[in-house]
Structure formats: structure tokens, C-alpha cells
């Protein structure tokens, strides 16, 4: 039977090169065929490294539960990252786009990606000099508030960002952004990290 892709990409293990560039997606059908070529022949030593890597990427293998995967693998070997796709809208652009926040290391990396996505300049500048730039990147956080991008540490940002918008400076006035430095949630020293 011809097995079509099952749309399980979200759950597949992927090999990502260091530096966060695009992951290599192993085609599921290819894995299946490769495996059945071997299984019937017990004299074959499965020594081919590439073959080994392919087989190791079977969905749900090794059988370690997802909670443990996310929490116990060595930081540097943490190849499986949870996807953090958020919608990005840019004033004037007809279509929204999506970015995977987990693929970026920091704000400048994200700014570059956004510039490429919308084929524009100035987003990186806006992070350094918010007052004067033409574009204002803002994001909606878990509480539904619109915040200026860049204030909080990157890790905190990607945890709380629900969507992004690149606003024109002219629209920014009166939009109701939370001012930098205030903690509108009322949290203070009590909350650890």
C-alpha cells in the first residue's frame, strides 16, 4: 500500500543543524522503504551511518515520553524543539505570515527573518532605536496586551508572545501600548523568574 504523508510533521523528530537553520525533514515513505529493505536480511549489519540516522528518526522513537524529551535531554543536544509559530501582520501587506519563534536565537535574528519575510528594511533598527524608526514591532502577549518588542529577555518573550505586528509609526500613537518598564500584570518580587 502506498502510504501518503500522514501530516504528522508536527510530531516527527527532526535533525536540526546548530545555529537554528531549517531542519532536515526525512520523508516518511523513504524511511519505510529503507527499513523494509533491511529487515528481511539478517546477515546485513546495519552499519551504514546514514541508514542508522534515518531509522532513528521514526516517529515516536526512541520511546521516551514527550514530557521527558522536553525536559531531560542535554541542552546542547536538544534537537527537538517545540514549534512556536505565531502570526505576523505588517501594516500595508496584504497577507499575514507565520514565523517559528523557536527557530530564532534572539531579537536581531528575528528582526532579520521578518525583514526577509516582508521584504523590507528597518525592523532591526527599530529594536535599537524605537523612537525614530518607521516601523514599530509589537506583540500580543498571553494576557491579550500589546507590547513593544524588545523589552524583556528573549526567553520570556517567546514564552508569552501570541502574535506579532509590524506597525507603522503613524499608527502607533494612541494604540494603547504598555509603556516600557511597567509590569501591568501586577507581578512584583513575589514571582520567581
Amino acid at each position, binding site marked *: 500500500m502506498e502510504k*501518503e504523508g500522514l501530516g504528522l510533521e508536527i510530531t516527527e523528530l527532526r535533525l536540526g543543524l546548530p545555529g537554528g537553520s531549517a531542519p532536515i525533514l526525512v520523508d516518511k515513505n523513504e524511511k519505510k522503504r529503507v527499513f523494509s529493505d533491511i*529487515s528481511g536480511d539478517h546477515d546485513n549489519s546495519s552499519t551504514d551511518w546514514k541508514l542508522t540516522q534515518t531509522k532513528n528518526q*521514526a516517529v*515516536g522513537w526512541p520511546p521516551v515520553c514527550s514530557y521527558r524529551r522536553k525536559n*531531560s535531554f*542535554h541542552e546542547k543536544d536538544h534537537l527537538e524543539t517545540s514549534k512556536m509559530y505565531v502570526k505576523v501582520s505588517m501594516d500595508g501587506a496584504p497577507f499575514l505570515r507565520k514565523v517559528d519563534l523557536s527557530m530564532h536565537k534572539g531579537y536581531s535574528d528575528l528582526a532579520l527573518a521578518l525583514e526577509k519575510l516582508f521584504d523590507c528594511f528597518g525592523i532591526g533598527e527599530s529594536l535599537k532605536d524605537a523612537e525614530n524608526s518607521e516601523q514599530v514591532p509589537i506583540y500580543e502577549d498571553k494576557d491579550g496586551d500589546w507590547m513593544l518588542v524588545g523589552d524583556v529577555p528573549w526567553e520570556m518573550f517567546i514564552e508569552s508572545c501570541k502574535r506579532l505586528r509590524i506597525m507603522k509609526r503613524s499608527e502607533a500613537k494612541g494604540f494603547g501600548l504598555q509603556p516600557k518598564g511597567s509590569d501591568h500584570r501586577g507581578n512584583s518580587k513575589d*514571582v520567581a523568574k
Partner: protein
Amino acid sequence: MMNYFPDEVLEHVFDFVTSHRDRNAVSLVCKLWYRVERFSRQRVFIGNCYAISPERLIARFPGVKALTLKGKPHFADFNLVPQDWGGYVQPWIEALARSRIGLEELRLKRMVVSDESLDVLSRSFTNFKSLVLVSCEGFTTDGLAAIAANCRFLRELDLQENEIEEKKNHWLGCFPDSCTSLVSLNFACLKEINLAALERLVARNPNLKSLKLNRAVPIEALQRILMRAPQLVDLGTGSFVLDRDSDDSETYRKLKATIQKCRSIRNLSGFLEVAPRCLPAVYPICLNLTYLNLSYAAGIHGSELIKLIRFCGKLQRLWILDCIGDKGLEVVASTCKDLQELRVFPSDPFGAGHAAVTETGLVAISSGCPKLNSLLYFCQQMTNAALIAVAKNCTNFIRFRLCILDPAKPDPVTMQPLDEGFGAIVQSSKRIRRLSLSGLLTDRVFLYIGMYAEQLEMLSIAFAGDSDKGMLYVLNGCKKLRKLEIRDSPFGDMALLRDVGKYETMRSLWMSSCDVTLGGCKTLAKKMPRLNVEIINENDQMEFAHEDSQKVEKMYLYRTLVGPRKDAPEFVWTLV
């Protein structure tokens, strides 16, 4: 003769019968015993929430106080079951709330729990005491806030490995000042916590015996908490790192002194973040530990692990990462003579090689720890000779789960399948109840399992076997089999349909990426109305063209008294 005793006497006798299976057996003796047993039953275990309905549970056991429910199939842990498959606790809680059941304890595993369910739960049962959620999802800290605020006599809140969305609501602060009954609190799977509320909570709950912290609790706070709770038996540390800014030596000294006062600690876990130089602070309590779980402590390297283990002479259960290495396992073998359970988890899923264990470590353990009865071992490779040696050294395995990271890998020395090795294990451990196989395996291993594993209840198979014969050996031979889960193995309709009655003696069967066809599953469903035969079909519906000859990607069948479930999503087809 027993008929001449009043019911109260029977009931009193049954009070001493506590295991679920024994009570089930008691209820089958005669109508009288069934009746007395049913009214006096307080603890009910439901291994598959779709096997029965809440209404029938309530009707039969009106006195139930403690309920355990399990939802998704085991392979859901490994992302083989799509989101929204099912396993909702809501209907259970609603039904129990509507009835006059005085629920006190609820334990859920692999279920979908909503904030609303938790809210209803917290308001409906005045004596509710214990909530244990394992591998559940669907709720947020709002639900936890409801539990904290409304369950006035809460003794236990145990959250193990759940996916919980965290709102900024300080749920821990919702425990009222009058809450002083806590015995067990585990929030290790959360990312944040309100520290001040935590410290106040610990201070006013002197009966706290089990406390498992999360990453957000720094070592300084741990020290303050332990000062308040030296009576702890079970401790899960959070972060075990000294801030570079703080006065290291003073903090460390205080910590060490405080820990030394905690003479009751027998179970130690956590170390979600750890600075190895802080570890010696726990050496004094290692001497009395019976359970040590360092399987989330990715920050501890092999040599530090070994230093720690050398202090743990009384250990009975050890959960660890494979960075301990074979050498480290040799140290375990020479130190932990009372060891009964060992779990070695992979620190690197793709098996880079250096941070791993092999057959050498396992043989050493079996040689040094003859009481070993429960094993979960992720390793780079395994040999038949090693398994045979292990089988000779340890004859008491109840659980034997071996996972060779490279699927279908043969014995690297002989290039043979591992049939003989596993055969030796099942032959020597006559009481084995759970077995997980890996490595290159032919039908022969199943022949051995069918012949020798008379007590086997759960079997997990992946990338194994040659033909239907393999599966048939197991179905025919293992009379006590309850759960069978198979993936990527060449078993098809012939094996599936040979003995359809067998499945009513089991809880469930999972088969994915095998050779069973839609037609075969339909035939089975037709013959066995008291099974739900579910096909999980994530393909585009149009492409899966209802061809009977088409292989089924995922099939999950289970016995049930209540027919097809009504909450199945559109990608789950229940065949009838």
C-alpha cells in the same frame, strides 16, 4: 456457611481484601457476595475510561470514594496518538457531581482535563482529599486555583509530567490560610511559582511529607523551606544552583546544615537545574535514601553521579540518565546491594555514543544486584550473551523493558537477532508481568514468550518479527495478557482474526504500521460487538478510499460494555 453471617460480618471480612483483583474475584463468588462487596467497595480502578460509563460505575458502587481512570493508549506518550483523540474526564466528573457520591480521591492518567472539570470537582465533593494527575493535559493554573481555593480538606495535589498552561494567577496563593492539611504537594512540571505563597504554605502545613518543587524555586528558597519542613520524607528539589552573585559559601553552609537536619528523607528527586559543586550538600541524606531519581538532572555528569551514588548504600530504586555510563553502573552494582528497580534513560535521543550505556553496564548491575526485579534500560547495544548472563543472575524480574536506541539492531558481536537473549529472560523470570522488546527479533522470540511468559500482562513490540506466526505465538501462549501494543511489525489479518475471543480477555490491543487491513478490522468488529475497533486515520479522508485491502495505519481496539464512544473525533472511525 457464609450465608449465615450477617452482611456486616462479610463486609468486615472484605475490608481486609484490598487489591482490586481480589475484590473483583470476591464479587464473582455468588450473588450475596456480589451485593455486599459492591456496597462496601470504596476504591475503584478503571484502566480504560471507555470500557464503562460513569453512570454504571455509580450504579454499581455507590460508596466509591477513590477512583482511578486512565484514558489514552500508552503509545500516546510517544506522539503516536493525535491531539483530540479523546480521554475526557468531564463526563465523569459531571456524573459523579450529579450523584450523591462522596468522592475523596481522584487519580487520572493520560486524560484530558479542563479547567471547568477541575472547578466542578473542587465544588462538588466536600471531603475531597487527593488529586493525582499523571501525563494529563487541557488545563491551566486556573483549574489548580479552583482546587486550592475550594477543597478545604485537601491532603494531596500531585502533578506528574502534565502539560499545564500557566496563567499569571498565583494559584498557590489561593490556598486559604485555613489550609493546614496538606501531606503531599508536587508541582515539578510547572515552570513558575509564587515563592512567597509557597513558603507560607509550607510553614502552615506541618504534616507535609512529600514536596516536589519546580525549576523556579532557587536553592536559597529550598533552604528556607527545608528549615520549615524537616519532617519531609519525599523531596524533589527545584533548581540546585547557587547564583554567582550570592554569598556562595554562606548559602552553601546554611544549606548543608539544614539538609542534615532532614533525617526523614528517603526519596530524593528533582535537580532540574544543578551546579555539581552544590551536590555534596546532599551527601548526608544519601545514606538513608531508598529512592533516588536523577533522570531529569541533565546537568550532572558521570563522575559527579558516581561520587553521589557511592553514598547511597540503601538504595532500592534508582532512576538515572545514561550519562552515568557503564563504569557508573559498575559503581551502582557494588554500592547498591538492595537495588530492586533501575531505570536508565537516554540523555541524547539519537545515540551519539559517548553518553550511553551498553550491555556491559547491565551485566554488572545484574551481577551486583540480585534483587533486581524491575528494569527500564535505554542502551546503545545489547548482546545475547549479556542477556543470558542477566537472566542467570536475576530470576525475579517482574518488569523488563529494554530499548536499544537503534531500532532492529542485532547482537553486534554475533550479528544475530536477540531472540535467544530475551528467551532466556522470560524463561528464568517466571513471574514476569511486563516486557518491552527491541533490537533485531524474529518470530522465534515470540515462540519463547508464548511458551514461558505465563504471567505476562503487558507486551510492547516494535520493529520485530517476520510473520503472523509471531503474533499468534503470543496470543495463544500468554493466557494472562491484558495489553498488547505493536508498531512497525509484519503482523496482519491472519494473526488478528485467528482468535477473536481473546480480545475480550484483554484490556486493549494497539497496532500501528503493521499489515492489518481495513477489511480485517471490519471483520473483527462484526464478530465482536463488545469490542470497540477504532481506526485512527489522519490521511485525507478522500484518499483512504474504504478499500478493504488497504492497510490500516493505526488500530486501537478495546473491550467495552458501553458500545462505540460518542466523543470520537472525525479522524477516529469506530468500525461496527
